[in-house]
């Protein structure tokens, strides 16, 4: 990392330089241990290594350059916030979900201790002045999903420019109507902030850009269905994570190139692991950078991950926005419809999720499912029971692991994962 040259930039963002150095140090070490140590990675992965090494460097520089040109930076925490609107107004949207323990103590002065690690992490990053993305944002968009986030945004809103979208909790026609209105209200906010108007032409282009990114991730997921799988689960998780902050066009191009390489590999019958390696799918809460703990444990226990049923995974990429709309109104309807398909555990009922998990397990030919729940996450912990039952009926072994970002339970988790693998072998 070319750290020195960025120090002035970080300083201008008012980061706590020494704490930030510490964070980068940990991130670098983690990345080395967990990613660079992998065997048989493809050339296309260099893109990932580069983007990650420049995660707080070059990409932030780009954001600041965009800002200097008058473009607005929008930060989000949830896949419900329609990126298409931001792009149609020439904004840059970045995901702010955080996956590190840093700032936890500080966060606990603003949110209760029994709050999930993801929330504590973004609050902590803000309080400890660790995240250049958060500090670059002109607007941070929250949403009414789980209670933990809703209330945390109230506290967060005192520290940052915050806007809240109301995400309904059911999928009734009334809920759909509310959501459409929320999309319009958000659009109006962005329009007045940027002084620009969303036009049919711009929105069509934005829809295409975001759909293309979803398409390339769908392509990647299809390739993983091959036995033996051509790419590690860790790498795919990283790709999904990077999709939240890299430029969408560049990302789509790089991942398409990677998929070409994967296809060649598949043609040669080459896998990243031996043919008989147990194939697992992760399901549940999102895993934000650098939360690679569980995938690393699983893949160093002799299994390979072939699917992520989560928001940093298929929940974000499964559905496309219908591109047939001609008028702005039609497009906005298509947009609202697409987002209403998201099968987040904050909805009740949420039976689509069970269907989706079952079909993913079949398509990806998994030997087992690991349900991952962040400690204190009520919505996903509740659905864990249903998912387990559904998978049992489907004949797919599964286990539930509840954890957070700390490292103290690594040995315990290893034992559980290994024991699970022993039962499915």
């Amino acid at each position, binding site marked *: 990392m070319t750290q020195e040259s960025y120090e002035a930039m970080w300083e201008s963002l008012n980061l706590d330089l020494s704490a930030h150095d510490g964070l980068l140090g940990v991130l670098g070490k983690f990345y080395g241990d967990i990613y660079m140590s992998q065997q048989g990675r493809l050339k296309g992965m260099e893109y990932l290594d580069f983007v990650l090494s420049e995660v707080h460097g070059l990409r932030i520089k780009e954001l600041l350059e965009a800002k200097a040109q008058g473009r607005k930076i929008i930060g989000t925490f949830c896949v419900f916030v329609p990126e298409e609107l931001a792009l149609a107004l020439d904004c840059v949207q970045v995901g702010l979900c955080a996956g590190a323990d840093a700032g936890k103590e500080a966060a606990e002065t603003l949110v209760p201790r029994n709050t999930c690690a993801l929330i504590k992490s973004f609050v902590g990053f803000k309080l400890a002045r660790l995240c250049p993305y958060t500090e670059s944002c002109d607007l941070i968009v929250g949403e009414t999903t789980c209670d933990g986030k809703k209330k945390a945004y109230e506290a967060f809103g005192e520290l940052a420019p915050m806007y809240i979208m109301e995400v309904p909790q059911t999928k009734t026609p009334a809920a759909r109507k509310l959501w459409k209105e929320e999309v319009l209200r958000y659009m109006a906010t962005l329009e007045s902030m940027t002084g620009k108007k969303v036009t049919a032409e711009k929105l069509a282009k934005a829809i295409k850009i975001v759909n293309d990114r979803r398409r390339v991730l769908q392509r990647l997921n299809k390739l993983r269905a091959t036995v033996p799988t051509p790419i590690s689960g860790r790498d795919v998780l990283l790709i999904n994570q990077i999709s939240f902050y890299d430029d969408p066009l560049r990302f789509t191009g790089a991942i398409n190139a990677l998929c070409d390489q994967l296809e060649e590999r598949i043609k040669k019958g080459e896998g990243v692991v031996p043919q008989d390696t147990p194939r697992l799918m992760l399901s549940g809460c999102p895993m934000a950078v650098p939360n690679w703990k569980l995938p690393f444990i699983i893949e160093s226990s002799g299994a390979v991950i072939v699917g992520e049923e989560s928001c940093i995974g298929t929940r974000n990429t499964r559905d496309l926005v219908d591109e047939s709309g001609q008028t702005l109104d039609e497009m906005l309807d298509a947009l609202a419809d697409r987002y209403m398909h998201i099968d987040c555990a904050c909805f009740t009922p949420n039976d689509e999720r069970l269907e989706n998990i079952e079909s993913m397990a079949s398509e990806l030919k998994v030997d087992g499912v690991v349900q991952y729940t962040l400690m204190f996450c009520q919505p996903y912990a509740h659905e864990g029971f249903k998912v387990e039952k559904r998978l049992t009926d489907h004949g797919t072994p599964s286990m539930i692991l509840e954890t957070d970002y700390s490292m103290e339970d690594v040995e315990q988790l290893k*034992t559980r994962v290994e*024991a699970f693998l*022993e039962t499915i072998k």
Partner: protein
Amino acid sequence: MMVLGIDIGSRSIEVVAMRQGEVVEKRHGPTTFNPVQQINHLLEGLEAQMAVATGYGRNLVQELSLGFPVQTITEIKAHGLGAHHLFPKGRTVLDIGGQDTKALSLLPGGRVGKFEMNDRCAAGTGKFLEYSAQIFQIPIQDFGAYALGGDNPPIINSMCTVFAETEATSLMAQGVKPENIALGLHLAIARRTVNMLNRVGLVLPLIFVGGVAHNPCMCNLLAEQTKTKIDETLFVPKEPDMSGALGAALWAQEIVAETT
């Protein structure tokens, strides 16, 4: 030729040596602060063809330069195999060890179906009892017998070792008979354990293994709470803490049989 099973737990290490399907030697000792040295010490003079290590410290064997191949399995699998070997009729296994409690359901042949483990803290494990015994200043091996002297246990709500101590001392201050408090502490574990057993789907007979199965009060309470009868629907081996090492030795035997 001989095979070895080594169970490296947080509190103690057990070794079982088998030849032609028969256990020929058993050894055990405390884990100490230098487990590697302790393992070496326990293995002295044992010439084996193959060893399987299990338990919390199973990966430590990689640091030993033993003259024979060593593989590892988890304590879940090891206890499943060991318990099944001792009581082939058993369908569910409960292991309460030094720092872990595990419940597992057995499929025919001793394979593990479902399993549950306590989470990261030592609540409801051997450690909890050890800690409690200290409050009473009673050696841990006598604590169970002492608790059997109780007849009217108070409800202890806390399963956290630290809070349970507070609860116990305040009960003492209220003049509750110490034997009853001791019984109450045992009961707290038994109750919690039953929850865990229910989560894997308790099917009888139940096999109770691990160091805590030495404790007569725990055995009685477990029988009471699971509505089982000792030696009929609840089996406790004579040396319950050897079952992990036994399972590991059995697995070593299987590996040898497969490769020769």
